[in-house]
């Protein structure tokens, strides 16, 4: 298993990918209709997943595939559809021709500067990989990325899972006052269709299986809680869109506990580490792997719920079928 068995074919794939990615990026920035730009962006995320595979970052590729094409696509496509009526007025805000030229030149200069940096990267490249490989066995996990996320740089991961909660509070906080505490209402509610219902009934069991598999496997192989949580969130949202379930009301106390339990368990184990292993977020000898798995399991649930609710948007109304539009008409 050599890294580049055949240099030329591999390089052709890479070059094709780069051209495609740049072409789509150009389309996203330059096309006039926002909806087309968003569709281009979804395709762009898909290609980026393949790019990550080519860069030997399979963990990242999974995250990109799940977040970039799945959840972000839903979020942005929905927003573009709802913003379409306002779009015609946007043309007025365009900067003038000369200003655009100037901006273009400056951006090109920045890109060229970055390109120069890429070409001048030190060779041999500095790396922390040997250090990680050396320190991986004590953690008991076999996937170096998971090891970094949960053992070596656990503070980053903790802050990240904490930061998702304020992000959700931020989304909720743009709700209109009377709607506070109600059910999220940004999800699209298409006309009920048997195909959609079928998809929402058949796909989630597979999705949940794959999500659990990703989390469980993430200890030793590519995968992990973010990827698994994204899949779980996507399945939940699919069920909500199909109308098989209603999104939970924001004031629901059990929901709120679910949202923060992951970070709390993480912090709790981290604080316990001060006494048991002499450092915040350190794991006692021999217990690293079970503790990491426990944290991953609870964090997965919390992250999945948070991601799903981020997509579902701010609370809209208490009306069972109430979207934003219904609540506005009545008010």
């Amino acid at each position, binding site marked *: 298993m050599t890294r580049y068995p055949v240099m030329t074919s591999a390089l052709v794939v890479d070059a094709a990918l780069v051209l495609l990615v740049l072409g789509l990026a150009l389309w996203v920035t330059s096309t006039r209709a926002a909806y087309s730009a968003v569709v281009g962006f979804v395709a762009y995320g898909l290609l980026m997943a393949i790019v990550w595979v080519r860069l030997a970052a399979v963990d990242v590729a999974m995250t990109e595939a799940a977040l970039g094409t799945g959840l972000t696509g839903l979020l942005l496509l929905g927003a573009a559809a709802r913003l379409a009526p306002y779009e015609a007025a946007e043309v007025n805000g365009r900067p003038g021709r000369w200003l655009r030229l100037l901006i273009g030149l400056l951006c090109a200069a920045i890109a060229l500067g970055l390109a120069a940096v890429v070409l001048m990267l030190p060779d041999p490249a500095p790396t922390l990989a040997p250090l990680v490989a050396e320190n991986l066995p004590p953690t008991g996990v076999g996937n170096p990325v998971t090891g970094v996320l949960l053992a070596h740089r656990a503070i980053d991961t903790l802050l990240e899972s904490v930061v998702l909660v304020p992000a959700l509070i931020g989304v909720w906080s743009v709700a209109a006052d009377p709607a506070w505490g109600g059910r999220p209402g940004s999800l699209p509610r298409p006309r009920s*269709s048997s*195909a*959609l219902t*079928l*998809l929402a009934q*058949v*796909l989630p069991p*597979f999705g949940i299986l794959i999500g659990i598999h990703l989390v469980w496997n993430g200890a030793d192989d590519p995968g992990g809680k973010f990827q698994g949580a994204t899949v779980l969130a996507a399945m939940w949202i699919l069920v909500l869109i199909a109308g098989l379930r209603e999104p939970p009301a924001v004031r629901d106390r059990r929901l709120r506990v679910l949202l923060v339990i992951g970070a709390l368990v993480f912090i709790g184990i981290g604080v316990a580490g001060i006494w048991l292993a002499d450092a915040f977020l350190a794991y006692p000898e021999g217990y690293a792997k079970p503790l990491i798995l426990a944290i991953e399991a609870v964090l997965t649930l919390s992250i999945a719920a948070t991601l799903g609710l981020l997509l579902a948007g701010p609370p809209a109304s208490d009306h069972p079928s109430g979207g934003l539009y219904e609540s506005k008409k009545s008010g």
Partner: protein
Amino acid sequence: MNLALDLLTIVAVSLGALFFLAGTVGLLRFPDTLTRLHALTKADNLGLGLVVLGLLPQVSAPLAALGLIAVWLLAMLSGATVGQLLAGAARPPDPDRAEMPARDAVSSHD
């Protein structure tokens, strides 16, 4: 034996690639959304299916083979559903629009 399996891989993967090409040509050349959708679903199911078939002899672990088949089945399931949904979106079942060809409905309402 090995040669035969390799040959199977080459034939099936090439055929699959060909179906992708056919699907693309159809997507580009066919006159309206529904016929394009038709071309696309052919490429989806047959192209991917043939590629998976071709790759099966090349993987050693049975679990990996199972994974390949699972990918194909999932793609079929979502492809079929999405085909339904997109077709519904391309031609909404309103009586005043139903008789129009999809492309006219698309461009004339602007």
